[in-house]
């Protein structure tokens, strides 16, 4: 399947995402530059991490208004799968693809370490193949990742909390929450479930040599999903 990795000025996990999709998963992949207005024949889109537009104004705010995001919104509205990672998650929230906002970490520190995530919520293209309750170990690297939402209860009721920070045994504790996110939320999806965003970096944990390949499950799930759909 063709996968487009969107590249903004200041993206810095674009090559990592490209590598995982192309080399690790063996799929055709291409970069889509922020000034492009079409995604071509892409069947899935990755919004990668980084510091698009230098995080000017707010993380993701400038990128959310770039030309390519018009195409990404149209793609998402048609049900196309979109995975928004870290800065990509901030961009997706700023663009209105996902609800909520990512704000300065409660610790005020740039948090850069492995975390544990519990997979839950409604089935999405990126998590359908992952058993519910499965704990993933993947790294985070962000200063603005504290998830804020006006109605977390509603989000939970709709099954749109997809990833939660937990301890290695699955406990939802304050100590396992690296940034002060509401209800330990690490990732969410849109109402339809085809757009998934998360602050942690699955693409940085997709090969055993990197210490964990748990992140690969998101990409494997997407491939299984597309196979199922064809």
């Amino acid at each position, binding site marked *: 399947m063709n996968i487009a990795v969107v590249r903004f000025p200041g993206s810095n996990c674009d090559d990592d995402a490209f590598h995982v999709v192309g080399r690790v998963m063996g799929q055709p992949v291409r970069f889509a530059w922020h000034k492009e207005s079409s995604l071509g024949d892409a069947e899935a889109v990755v919004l990668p991490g980084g510091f698009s537009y230098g995080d000017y*104004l*707010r993380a993701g705010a400038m990128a959310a*208004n770039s030309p390519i995001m018009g195409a990404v919104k149209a793609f998402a509205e048609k049900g196309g799968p979109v995975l928004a990672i870290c800065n990509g998650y901030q961009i997706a*929230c*700023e663009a209105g693809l996902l*609800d909520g906002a990512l*704000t*300065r970490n409660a610790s*005020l520190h740039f948090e850069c370490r492995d975390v544990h995530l519990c997979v839950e919520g409604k089935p999405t293209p990126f998590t359908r193949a992952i058993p519910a309750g499965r704990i993933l170990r993947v790294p985070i690297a962000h200063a603005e990742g504290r998830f804020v939402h006006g109605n977390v209860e509603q989000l939970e009721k709709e099954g749109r909390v997809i990833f939660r920070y937990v301890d290695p045994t699955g406990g939802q504790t304050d100590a396992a929450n690296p940034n*002060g996110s509401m209800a330990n939320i690490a990732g969410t999806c849109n109402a339809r479930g085809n757009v998934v965003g998360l602050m942690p970096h699955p693409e940085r944990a997709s090969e055993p040599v990197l210490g964990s390949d748990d992140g690969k499950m998101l990409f494997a799930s997407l491939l299984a999903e597309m196979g199922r759909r064809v």
Partner: protein
Amino acid sequence: MKAKVYVTLKSGVLDPQGQAVARALGRLGFAEVKDARIGKYIEMSIADDVKDIDSHLKQMCERLLANTVIEEYRYEIVK
């Protein structure tokens, strides 16, 4: 003319930066500081002949300058 836009966090949204600044002021001996909130100030030079500057400024704030999920804004027009 000039437009001055103030973007601040909504009350109830945690502001760890503001808390750190309030604590630092306390350490400097300003015991009277109970709380501090950090915001943004944006000053723009605007063409004088704009007709609908009020509604334009509102749109600028809603669409880019503020994230209304967590922030509120106000603006002043200085002729």
